[in-house]
């Protein structure tokens, strides 16, 4: 592989484009594949199989050939509501797991750049903030403020958009009250029960990094269940 091609791959990864690298294992030639774009002759004859690998988000060697395909998929979007202490550790874990984090917090003193360097922080109320983030059923929400004014609108947005993971911080009692409010807002039991509350897997820890670990573990586990 040429260094220039490596740079191009890194650039594509950074711009969150879905693509694949196809390599001829015999002569070492490789190319970047993007759906709809044509490849050079030696790869074009395997187009159908390459398309298949790409659709299935699979890596591997095409059967009876020496062509290897590695697919790159977009990072999963995770929206954290509440730029609190736990969020600072979540950001650290998410970096090594390649989740794409956005933080929403209308409270400026929490959502400061100094507390979250190099992070996308939206210093607005959830209803306004979600206008700036494209979300769908492949998105996740972690609500951390346990303030109904901030968490509830975000939870409602996530439920309406069918996020695959929705978690909300708070005790059992806090969560019961939250469920009651969502019921009154017109959400059904199935929707409400899909919220992970109290959030996270049972680790037993109570410190901010431990709670962050239990949340991120649950998020990864739910990602693979989907």
């Amino acid at each position: 592989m040429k260094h220039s091609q490596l740079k191009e791959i890194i650039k594509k990864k950074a711009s969150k484009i879905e693509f694949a690298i196809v390599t001829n294992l015999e002569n070492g030639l490789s190319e970047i594949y993007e759906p709809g774009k044509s490849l050079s002759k030696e790869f074009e004859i395997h187009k159908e199989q390459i398309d298949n690998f790409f659709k299935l988000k699979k890596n591997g060697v095409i059967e009876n050939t020496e062509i290897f395909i590695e697919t790159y998929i977009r990072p999963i979007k995770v929206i954290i509501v509440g730029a609190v202490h736990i969020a600072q550790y979540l950001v650290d874990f998410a970096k090594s797991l390649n989740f794409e984090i956005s933080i929403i917090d209308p409270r400026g003193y929490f959502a400061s750049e100094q507390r979250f360097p190099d992070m996308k922080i939206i210093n607005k109320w959830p209803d306004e903030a979600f206008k700036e983030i494209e979300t769908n059923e492949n998105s996740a929400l972690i609500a951390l403020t346990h303030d109904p004014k901030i968490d509830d609108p975000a939870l409602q947005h996530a439920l309406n958009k069918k996020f695959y993971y929705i978690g909300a911080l708070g005790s059992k009692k806090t969560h019961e009250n939250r469920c009651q409010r969502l019921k009154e807002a017109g959400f059904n039991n199935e929707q409400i029960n899909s919220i992970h509350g109290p959030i996270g897997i049972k680790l037993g820890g109570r410190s901010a990094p431990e709670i962050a670990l239990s949340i991120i573990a649950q998020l990864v586990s739910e990602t693979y269940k989907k």
Partner: protein
Amino acid sequence: MKNSFDEKILEEANDWLNANQKVVLATVIQTWGSSPRQVGSRMIVNETGDFSGSVSGGCVESAVVRECIGLIKDNKPCKKIEFKVSNESAWEVGLACGGEIAVYLEQIN
């Protein structure tokens, strides 16, 4: 849904190249049986044998490093190597897990 878990090895390779190091990229391209790392797992090696990333759980990395240095010395563009189940005497370069893997080495230049 598959997570886009990514270990940023290519980004690290770019840093090494920018620091004028010679870099070989090793990629797991096939696995059989119970192998520790999945297809697409990566590792980089420079001319002095420094390495980052992994292609197994530590079972065959030393052999991969040797092969990569050889590739740089012989100035070859690429090579495919396979590792099979280890036996007792060859504990250093085999997969104790009972799996088999094929690793593709390529120089980046």
